[in-house]
């Protein structure tokens, strides 16, 4: 087994490189099923984290987790980044938090079999990214998250706020600490 390349923090100065236009607009423009998933990222003192970067990944509404290209999409004339362009559903979002630690993604609901957005959190001060999940619906019976103790599972459930809007906060540390996941294909040690 090859030893992996170690992780290093994303640092504070990724803003000119990683975010792209429409990075939070996963739903095709004007799609009637669009939902908004938003929230804040907090540190261990309960302060908002203004320089986190979140990536969300999900299966499409039809159930396929295969994804599609086109998240970055280029302006064919000028060559600049235009973002997803509102046409295809790529399943991928990338958004930076603002000064209030707030982030927001507009997407299509994930399928009932995988009713979650996989969320990957990067930040200055985080030496390695963290994975969690924002469930927009109850985990189905076969999902191992359904078998977690209630208080742990609760941190993975986005709260419906009405108007097709869901709130999902990430607490990096402390009493409200989010459950972060080490996802494996099979049980057993890594």
């Amino acid at each position, binding site marked *: *087994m*090859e*030893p*992996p*390349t*170690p*992780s*290093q*923090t*994303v*640092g*504070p*100065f990724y*803003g*000119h*490189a*990683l975010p792209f236009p429409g990075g939070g607009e996963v739903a095709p423009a004007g799609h009637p099923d669009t939902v908004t998933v938003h929230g804040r990222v907090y540190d*261990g003192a309960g302060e908002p984290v203004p320089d986190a970067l979140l*990536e969300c*990944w999900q299966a499409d509404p039809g159930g396929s*987790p*295969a*994804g*599609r*290209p*086109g998240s*970055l*999409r*280029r302006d064919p004339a000028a*060559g600049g980044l235009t973002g997803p362009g509102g046409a295809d559903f790529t*399943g*991928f979002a990338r958004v930076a938090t603002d000064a209030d630690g707030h982030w927001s993604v507009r997407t299509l609901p994930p399928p009932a079999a*995988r009713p979650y957005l*996989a969320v*990957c959190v990067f930040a200055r*001060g*985080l*030496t390695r*990214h*963290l*994975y969690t999940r924002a469930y927009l619906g109850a985990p189905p019976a*076969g*999902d*191992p*998250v359904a078998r*977690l103790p209630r208080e742990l599972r609760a941190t993975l459930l986005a709260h419906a706020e009405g108007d097709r809007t869901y709130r999902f906060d990430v607490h*990096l*540390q402390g009493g409200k*600490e*989010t459950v*972060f*996941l*080490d*996802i*494996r*294909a*099979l*049980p*057993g040690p*890594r």
Partner: protein
Amino acid sequence: MAAGSPLTQRQVSAEIAEAHRATAAAVAAGAPAPHHPPRDFAPYRSTVLRHPHRPPLPLADPDAAELHGPVFGRTDVTELDGDLTRQHPGEPLGERITVTGRVRDRRGRPVRGQLVELWQANAAGRYAHPCDRHPAPLDPNFTGAGRCLTDDDGAYRFTTVRPGAYPWRNHENAWRPAHLHFSFFGSAFTQRLVTQMYFPGDPLFPHDPILQSVTDPAARARLVAAYDPALSVPEWSLGYRWDVVLDGPAATWAEPGEAAR
């Protein structure tokens, strides 16, 4: 800077040495060498309030969406995106370099057709980012961000300039060694990697709590590129080779009847 007087380099170096001693002792006692930095690494001060107290929860989920991942293609990346010296009308200042290597998974299989992103400071050590207040000059001919897709051998390639070292406020008189920031995607979201590449022989290495957050020396060495004369282009650029191995299960990781590792 947080309230109170900043730590000195001597204090930070003592904390780093202690963390390295603890890793060496654990490895000597039979523990596997840690590949990644601990998230709780106090010499890098920003970790203090940003690391979870609980370790990530192992979740065996063969149906996980994370065993698949985002897909990028020719709509996302153009040929020019890998050359950071050609994004403006003029040539950027600095030492022109070519950086290339192969991206593989832990079984040594090439990671094909996946997105690689690079970002960096300019030759003077300044980021084209409004929050970077280091009083070094901006370069109107250098933004410092590029991307490419890996080819069928898993190879990536960038042309850029060597970045400068820069100060930061982790502790008194703290300077980051010259580095390139990289982001890699694998075939599965679980293989995601964001890291930094360093240049060989930098005297700032032992003083830098970010590089030293990787507490195993062999793992740290994997973040340092090799100067490769065969990659240098005469009268044009210096060549560096840096190969990358993505951690985490791939979609095709678990084959029938096979143990996890």
